[in-house]
């Protein structure tokens, strides 16, 4: 789409813009940014599973938890106390393995049934997080050992590091780690989507029969989609844990899973950029709204008057309405909006390509299964 500006320049500009915040914004903003980046990584994974392979999952919170707790336990005490970089890597694989363990279900159960079946993971996971307190720290969770790679710590080490006059604490450092991980996620996920596995998964979504007959091993690919998506979730979990600095079981509940589902749909199913945009929308918007809602008219400061609408309430009203409005006017999500804006901006294309993707109803007869 970048006929006038070379693609490389766009990427470079974006990278520069994304590197700037740590030098200007304070911890509040950086944390929001970190949460958003982690969410984006997780959402990309879910997008691959739900958007591309068509397997609904409400169990994403569980895999995030596996990543987060896996890292904490592997790197911490009690636990094997591994080097943190290794622990992070293993935590991601652990999440993948957890996804693999679920494959008997993921391979058989489909659609919304799978969605609710994965709900079981969230509840089971929560139960385990609470009961296995020697590993998980129980209800109060555990503090997360800061990551350090090659001697460079991504935690607070007493304000030693100063870059361009800005003291680099944990948030500032993690920002760059988050960026790097997000870029990696973006790059790999796009590769997957456009490559052989992505096409096979999309085929599975549209017609399992056609996919099978064209040589796609249905069960293996369904399971693999689950594993890969869980690994992204695990990575997101690790980053989240580092950003939170403490993992607690209550965070990894159903609401989180639902949030992730909202992310990928609001962003626009089936694209990496969509998942990332949705992640920022769902993560950052409520936080920012809560923070700034008291500037709205008719909103009272928290706890001051009786019966007024407090900022949190106002923020929730707005957030709920925002979800509805976005999807009402852009059923194909945020990426749909940008696509539309782009076609508007270039009115006279030589061969008028269809402005929107076609409705699937035209082709899709019912999934024919023998």
């Amino acid at each position: 789409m970048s006929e006038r500006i070379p693609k490389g320049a766009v990427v470079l500009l974006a990278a520069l813009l994304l590197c700037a915040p740590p030098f200007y914004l304070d911890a509040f903003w950086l944390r929001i940014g970190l949460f958003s980046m982690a969410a984006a990584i997780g959402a990309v994974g879910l997008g691959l599973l739900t958007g591309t392979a068509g397997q609904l999952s409400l169990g994403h919170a569980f895999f995030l938890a596996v990543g987060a707790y896996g890292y904490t336990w592997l790197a911490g005490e009690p636990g094997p106390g591994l080097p943190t970089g290794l622990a992070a890597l293993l935590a991601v694989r652990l999440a993948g393995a957890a996804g693999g363990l679920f494959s008997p279900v993921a391979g058989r159960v489909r659609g919304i049934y799978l969605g609710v079946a994965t709900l079981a993971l969230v509840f089971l996971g929560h139960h385990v997080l609470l009961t296995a307190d020697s590993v998980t720290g129980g209800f109060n969770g555990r503090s997360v050992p800061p990551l350090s790679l090659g001697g460079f710590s991504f935690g607070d080490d007493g304000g030693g590091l100063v870059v361009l006059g800005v003291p680099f604490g944990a948030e500032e450092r993690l920002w760059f780690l988050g960026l790097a991980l997000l870029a990696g996620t973006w790059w790999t996920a796009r590769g997957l989507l456009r490559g052989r596995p992505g096409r096979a998964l999309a085929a599975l979504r549209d017609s399992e029969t056609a996919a099978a007959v064209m040589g796609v091993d249905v069960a293996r690919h369904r399971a693999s989609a689950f594993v890969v998506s869980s690994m992204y979730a695990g990575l997101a979990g690790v980053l989240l844990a580092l950003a939170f600095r403490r993992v607690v079981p209550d965070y990894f509940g159903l609401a989180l899973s639902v949030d992730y589902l909202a992310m990928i749909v609001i962003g626009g199913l089936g694209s990496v950029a969509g998942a990332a945009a949705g992640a920022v929308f769902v993560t950052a918007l409520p936080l920012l709204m809560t923070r700034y809602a008291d500037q709205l008219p008719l909103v009272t400061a928290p706890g001051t008057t009786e019966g007024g609408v407090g900022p949190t309430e106002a923020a929730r009203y707005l957030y709920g309405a925002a979800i509805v409005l976005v999807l009402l006017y852009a059923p194909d999500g945020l990426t749909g909006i940008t696509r539309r804006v782009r076609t508007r901006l270039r009115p006279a294309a030589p061969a008028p390509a269809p402005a929107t993707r076609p409705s699937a109803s035209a082709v899709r007869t019912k999934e024919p299964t023998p």
Partner: protein
Amino acid sequence: SSKADGDSGSDSADGVKSGPGVTAKTIKLGALTDLTGPYATLGKSIVQAQQLWADETNAAGGICDRKVEIVVKDHGYDVQKAVTAYADLSPDVVALPQVIGSPVVAALLDDIERDHLLTFPQAWAASLLGKDSVQVMGTTYDVDMITAVDFLTRTKGLAKGDSIGHVYFEGDYGANALEGSTWAAEKAGLKIVPQKIKATDTDLTAQVSALSKAGVKAVLISAGPAQTASLVGVAASRGLKVPVVSSAPGYAPQLLKTPAAPALLGLLNVVSAAPAVSSDLPGVQKMVAAYGKKYPASPVDSGVLSGYNAAQLLGADLKKACAAGSLAREDVVKAHRGQKSVDTGLGSPQDFSDVPRPAALSTYVLKPDAKAVGGLVGVEDAHEAPGVTEYLAGRS
């Protein structure tokens, strides 16, 4: 860039060392509260009570010649919101006289310790003890439950060999309460029949069946008001007429408007770190009167009392720190830990010097009363149940 010029604590004109949250004219305190989530009622009571305290304090000239200001952030019981709100709030305040929500407190424990931000969580689980900057006020749930078991054996005729049911929430509130009851029961030769529930369980029929099957002679409950109402109501309707003792968060005055009210009045007792709001302690009465005047439409409940108490205790700490010449956060914590016996006139005196130990060991036993302010009246004054000291010694 804006961030390059950091401001660090410095001495102000009056020679008092200051730090984040303290200027020459104001002292800023923070509240991470829940005004829109499951603990909204509690949150509102505490926010209002502490605001009342701030107004009174400022009217009396403030602390250390500075006005007190409370910045309230509502997280709606959402951990992620709370953690971001903390990042937003923490650079600008000197202490947190209120943090609601166990998962929130748990998620922030490390940050609070690192920032030396003196914090009064509105939770009484023993797992929150042992952190220098975090102060649980009064007794913890386990201590209350030891008192409850003692109360049952003393006044309700439970004897060796009897069993007691304990219905409790998953999480540290329930777990801590169960720890206390189990210890006390074993000590008294009783048996505890545990029943774990979730906050979303509001129909306790199955639990009551299980308890009657086990033939319990009394029931302890460490859950929320709705669960208490269901438990007592179902038990009464099924003829399981045994005494029930609840932890403090398991009771709310609204329960007396439910169909379970008669049963509650007949069977329930509440163990609490704080006295009933209807207590005749002069401090409490004064506070209740002032609160009623300022917020005539709000009910006066136990949250008001504990919120006001926390604010007063913090005020005392700040004054002490001021007198010692520094309002820097570390010094406020230090001042706080130096308090061996503070009495705000709102309940038992508290000892903050021993970090891993509850600030008080005396528990009140209360019972519902429709006519009383706050729906509770005292049954037994604050007292340390036999065995509490031994229990604490054994635990550490």
